[in-house]
């Protein structure tokens, strides 16, 4: 063995030298770039080995961490750095330069200064206006889908593909896990009659009263969990009138904006909500929040479908232990053993 290595090396060097000698314009044997088709339908050329990733999409930073590629993050956003549970799971995030602000605006100089191999960005139908500027520095931008559970899977798969082989394997494992959870839940919920599906209202900000409507990750997990979205508007964070909420008369209300618990209490305290069925029945709940907000585009969407199913149909999911599943999930995908106090902090959407 001792002499085979150098021998092989010499042989390889010789071959390469010969190849170059024969024809100087011949392609380099190992490819240095590869091509990937992104959510916007663009064919993007990226480095074969990606070591430096800039991620202006808050939610996706936690995905990168889950896939095991967080050490490759060279630029992130302020909001990702401020996400309490992401900091707990991955303290280095605080040292990663925030080349992007909360609104997705870029500081080109910071970005160029950290020499990213690729930028991962959420695609909501439009390309970021800084796309051309960034690409003129030969930094490729890969757009990822973000408006459905299917889109979430694609995002995880593509993020894995961009990051490398090891991360791709974790991505495949995660997608299997997510599919398995969805299957476990829909096995039961798909048999529900329309009348057995509670009307669920998911509020973004109760004070201003914006709610999450159809064609969103939120709508998807409500359906999977055996509910229907009470709000027949399209898109997330849509403003609606108080009166319309009374007309919709949801059976269950899920509060999805920090501070979730206070916002939940505010609904109980407000006389205008008093006659709504969910409030009368005490069925107003605060959504859990972890490495990212469970209810949105997050790794924890896999847990969200379980949590919501148990919440909407406690009897049908009597033997589903969401707390145990949650502990297992964070241990398996984030390599963090949750203490009971930490588990409570995630379920109550408070900082660890």
């Amino acid at each position, binding site marked *: 063995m001792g002499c085979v290595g150098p021998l092989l090396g010499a042989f390889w060097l010789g071959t390469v030298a010969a190849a170059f000698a024969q024809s100087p314009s011949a392609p380099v044997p190992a490819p240095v770039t590869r091509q990937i088709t992104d959510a916007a339908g663009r064919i993007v050329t990226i480095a074969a080995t990606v070591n430096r990733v800039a991620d202006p999409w808050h939610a996706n930073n936690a995905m990168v961490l889950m896939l095991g590629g967080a050490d490759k993050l060279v630029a992130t956003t302020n*909001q990702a750095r401020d996400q309490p549970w992401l900091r707990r799971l991955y303290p280095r995030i605080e040292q990663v330069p925030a080349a992007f602000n*909360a609104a997705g605006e870029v500081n080109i100089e910071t970005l160029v200064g950290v020499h990213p191999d690729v930028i991962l960005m959420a695609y909501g139908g439009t390309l970021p206006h800084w796309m051309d500027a960034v690409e003129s520095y030969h930094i490729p931008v890969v757009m990822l889908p973000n408006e459905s559970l299917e889109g979430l899977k694609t995002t995880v798969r593509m993020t894995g593909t961009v990051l490398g082989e090891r991360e791709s394997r974790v991505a495949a494992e995660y997608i299997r896990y997510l599919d398995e959870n969805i299957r476990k839940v829909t096995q039961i919920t798909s048999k529900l009659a329309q009348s057995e599906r509670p009307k669920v209202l998911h509020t973004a900000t109760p004070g*201003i009263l914006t709610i999450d409507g159809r064609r969103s990750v939120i709508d998807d997990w409500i359906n999977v969990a055996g509910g229907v979205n009470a709000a027949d508007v399209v898109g997330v*964070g849509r403003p609606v*009138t108080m009166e319309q909420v*009374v*007309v919709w008369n949801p059976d269950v209300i899920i509060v999805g904006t920090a501070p979730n618990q206070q916002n939940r209490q505010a609904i109980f305290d407000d*006389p*205008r909500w008093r006659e709504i069925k969910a409030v009368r029945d005490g069925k107003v709940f605060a959504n859990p929040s972890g490495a990212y907000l469970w209810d949105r585009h997050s790794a924890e969407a896999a847990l969200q479908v379980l949590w919501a199913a148990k919440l909407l149909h406690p009897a049908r999911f009597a033997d589903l232990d969401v707390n145990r599943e949650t502990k297992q999930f964070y241990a398996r995908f984030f390599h963090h053993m949750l203490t009971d106090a930490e588990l409570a902090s995630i379920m109550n959407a408070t900082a660890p």
Partner: protein
Amino acid sequence: MSKLRTVALLIVIPLALLYASLFVGRFLVSPLDVARILAAQIFPLNADWSKSAEIIVLQIRLPRALMAMCIGAGLSISGAAYQGMFRNPLVSTDILGVTAASGFGAAVALLLSRNAFELQLIAFAFGLAGVALTYRLARIYRTTPVLMLVLSGVVVAAFFSACLSGAKYVADPESKLPAITYWLLGSLNAASVKGLAMVLLPIVAGCVGLLLVRWKLNVLTMGDEEARSLGVETERLKGIIIVCTTLITAAAVSVSGMVGWVGLVIPHVGRMLVGPDHRLLLPATLSIGASYLLFIDDIARTASAGEIPLGILTALIGAPFFAYLLRKTRGTWH
């Protein structure tokens, strides 16, 4: 006769609109049920209507309608008073920076995830502070020349606008940023009995204050020096007007967000109807403004399942209407 009819209309229309607003909406409540729900508050009546209908009428529509009337009336009378005081028909209620300052206050409250009540309080306080700053900047040797007031207002408004942009820049784009954006576009959706109680006091106090000095406003429109020679203490009068309009506007903005156009245009509509005499003009704008914003808000909350921002509608409906009046009267009412 015609004047009497105008006065009668100015009293009847807002009241009729108020009643209509209680049975118009996405949730069906008949006009008769509305009357019985209202009557049941005073007389013992057998309540055979649904609990939801009662909440819709008493907790949601009534506070919201009263809020719209208060804010419409308040912004309009403030606009009329400022247009007189600054002797300029292009002046609006936000000239001293109150809107920008309140807007920033609201954005801060939203960033800090405060509840609706605290948001209102913080926005109100910022509005008052903004105008206090403007007034302090404009003060020279115990006088506040109009030009200094306008320029100081521009400075303060620019400063708070920049702060507001800064707040939006750091806001979370998934929840906080849309909340700030929608808030700034103006809405009465947050109207509640508690919120109404809080804005009622400053707005009513401000309106009463302006109504009390309305005859002196006529003198002020002749210019500071003329007014002084006629024995009016112009500095004190200006101070009173600024305090009153600021109380009104800060309270209005704190609950409804930025509802533009009302304070600018309704005074002109008032002048078309009753002429430029402030003794008549101020009460008239009170009624027209209340009716106008109530009508617009009824559209905002009923036209779709979602809430249409008020700031969009006040201009979208108000601008063509004003254009029509402008063409018809050829601007001859001044």
